[in-house]
C-alpha cells in the first residue's frame, strides 16, 4: 500500500499510554493528511474485538494501529483473519520507503534481526493492521492525558461509555466465549519500569540471588526501578516478569539506564534503544552490550554495586 493512499487511521485505545504513542507516531509518518479515529475499549476481548470489527466495517480505515498488550494481542490477529488482511506484529518502526510504500519494521529471532514487511493489498475494507509494544515509540512531551491529546486531534468512539449508557451490552455474543470472572492485582505492575527515569537492570552475569537483592536495593536508593533480562528472570532469583526488558517484555526509555552483568543479546538491547544514556558494567570485556552503551566498565558487577551502595550510604 502506498502511504499516500492512507486516508483514515483507526487507533485502538485501551486506557494505556500506548494509544498516544501510536497516535504520535502516525502523525509523524502521515502528518495532517489522513483522518484519525480512536476507538476506546477495555475489558473482555470479545467485546473489544466485536466493536473493532463493527467499526472497521463502518469507518473503512486503510490502517489500524493496536498496542501489543495482553488485550491487543488477542484482538489484532483475530481481525487479520476476519478481514483477510496482514498483521505486522510488534513493529519497531513504521516508515515510508523510497517508492512511497508503507513499510513495517518488525523483529525476528528475538530482535537478532529486523526486517521490513509490506501489506501490499491493504485498502479500505481490508486495512493493514500493525501492533506496537508499549514504550516502543516515545510519547510527545506535551501529551498530557490521552483524553485531551486525542480529543484535540481525533474523533473518539467510546465503547466504554456506550456500554455504561446501555447502548451496547458488555456481555459476549459468542456462545461459550471467554468471559472475565476475576481481576486481581499484580505484585509488581509494569508501570514501575515504564515510567522510571533511572533503570538499574540485572542480567545473568549477576550470578546469584544475593547480588540481585543488592541491585534492587541500589535501584531503590537511586530513586529508580529495578529491571531484569530474560536470562536473569529464568535464573529464578525473584526478579518480576513485569520488569523484564526486551522483545518478549517491555521497551523502556529512561534518562539513565545502568546494566549489570548483561551480555547484550538483541532480545534485550532492542528494548533499551530509546534510553538517553546507557551505562554497562560487565566482567567480560568482549560483551556485546558494550557496543550499544555510551559508557562501559569491565568489572565484576557486584563490586561496582557495592561501591555505589557505599558511596550513596
Amino acid at each position, binding site marked *: 500500500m502506498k502511504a499516500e493512499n492512507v486516508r483514515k487511521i483507526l487507533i485502538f485505545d485501551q486506557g494505556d499510554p500506548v494509544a498516544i504513542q501510536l497516535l504520535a507516531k502516525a502523525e509523524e509518518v502521515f502528518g495532517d493528511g489522513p483522518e484519525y479515529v480512536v476507538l476506546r475499549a477495555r475489558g473482555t476481548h470479545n467485546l473489544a474485538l466485536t466493536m473493532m470489527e463493527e467499526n472497521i466495517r463502518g469507518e473503512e480505515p486503510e490502517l489500524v494501529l493496536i498496542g501489543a498488550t495482553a488485550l491487543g494481542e488477542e484482538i489484532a490477529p483475530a481481525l487479520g483473519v476476519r478481514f483477510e488482511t496482514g498483521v505486522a506484529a510488534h513493529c519497531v518502526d513504521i516508515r515510508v520507503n523510497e517508492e512511497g510504500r508503507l513499510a513495517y519494521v518488525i523483529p525476528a529471532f528475538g530482535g537478532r534481526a529486523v526486517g521490513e514487511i509490506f501489506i501490499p493489498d491493504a485498502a479500505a475494507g481490508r486495512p493493514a493492521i500493525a501492533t506496537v509494544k508499549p514504550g516502543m515509540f516515545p510519547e510527545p512531551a506535551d501529551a498530557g492525558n490521552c483524553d485531551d491529546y486525542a480529543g484535540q486531534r481525533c474523533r473518539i468512539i467510546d465503547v466504554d461509555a456506550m456500554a455504561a449508557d446501555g447502548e451496547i451490552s458488555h456481555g459476549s455474543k459468542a456462545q461459550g466465549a471467554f468471559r472475565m470472572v476475576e481481576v486481581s*492485582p499484580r505484585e509488581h505492575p509494569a508501570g514501575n519500569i515504564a515510567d522510571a527515569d533511572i533503570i538499574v537492570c540485572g542480567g545473568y552475569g549477576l550470578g546469584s540471588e544475593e547480588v540481585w537483592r543488592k541491585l534492587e536495593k541500589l535501584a531503590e536508593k537511586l530513586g529508580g526501578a529495578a529491571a531484569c533480562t530474560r536470562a536473569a528472570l529464568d535464573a529464578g532469583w525473584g526478579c518480576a516478569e513485569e520488569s523484564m526488558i526486551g522483545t518478549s517484555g517491555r521497551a523502556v526509555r529512561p534518562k539513565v539506564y545502568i546494566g549489570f552483568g548483561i551480555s547484550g543479546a538483541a532480545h534485550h538491547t532492542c528494548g533499551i534503544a530509546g534510553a538517553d544514556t546507557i551505562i554497562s558494567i560487565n566482567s567480560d570485556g568482549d560483551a556485546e552490550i558494550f557496543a550499544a552503551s555510551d559508557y562501559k566498565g569491565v568489572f565484576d558487577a557486584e563490586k561496582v554495586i557495592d561501591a555505589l551502595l557505599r558511596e550513596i550510604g
Partner: protein
Amino acid sequence: MHSPRRSHHLFMNILVLVKPVPDPEREKDIKVDVASGRLIREGIPMVIDPESRNALEAALQLAEKSGREQSAVAVLAMAPEQARDKLTEALAMGADEAYMLSDRAFGGADTFATSYTLAQAVRKIEDEKGFVFDLVLAGTSSSDGGTSHVAVQTAEWLGRTHISNVCSLDVNDGVVRAVKRSEEVMLSFEGEEPAVIGVTRDINRPRFVTAMGIIKARKRPLTLWSADDLEIDTMRTGLVGSPTRPGRMFEPEQKRAGETIGDTPEEAAAGILRIIRKAGL
C-alpha cells in the same frame, strides 16, 4: 469400559500445535547477509519451540488429570520434512500421535496462511476421528517469529473461542478456566470447550524425554500430509496466500560510543553518580 453418562467430560482429547524452530540458544549464530538482505541460519539445529513444549506439557497434565487411559493428546506441525524428528520427540515426551504438514506449497507462509493451513488440518483430523478436540493448545509466542498470532488466528479460522498469554489453565467438566497477565493486573477467564489456548513459558516446566519415552514413541503413529491430502484453497496457503510480504532483513543498528567509565569499581561508581546528577536526577 465406557461409562454411558457424560462420558465426554470424563476424558479429554487435546491437540497441540508444535513449531520446529532454529535453536534459540544459538541466536548469536544467526546473521544477516547484507548484500541479499536475507537471514543466514545454516548449521543451526532445529528444536521444538520452547513455548510449544509448555503447551504439550500442559496438554499432558490435563490428560493425566482426566484419566490418561482414555484421554488422548495429538500434536500437529507444519514444517519441512527434515523436522520430522521433532515430532518424534513430541511423541517421546508423551503425545499419543503426531501429524505433520509438509509441502512446498506451504512454504513462505505468514501467520495468516499458516493458521489457515493448520485449521484445515485440525478439521480433517476431527472428521477422521469423529469428534471435536476439547482443546487446541499452542505456545503464544515462538522464539523465531514471535508474533503471538497463530493460536488466535487458528481459533478464528475454526470459529472457536480463544485466549492467549495464558499462564495458568484448568478444565473442570468442560469449563475452561484460564489466567492471563495484563500490564497491570491478573485476569481470570472462564469459557467453554471447544477452545483454543495460547500458553506462556511460565505455565509449567516441560518434562524431559526419557529412554522409555523414546522406545514408546517408535510405536506411535506419525502421519505425514501434503497439500493434496487437505481440503484447501491454495490462494490462502504459502507465500501466495500470505497478505504480508517480507522485504529486506538487517541487523539492528545500536552503535554507541562505549567510553570507559573508570579504572576501578570505585571510579566507575563515582562516574555513574556523576552521569545521574548531570541528567538532573
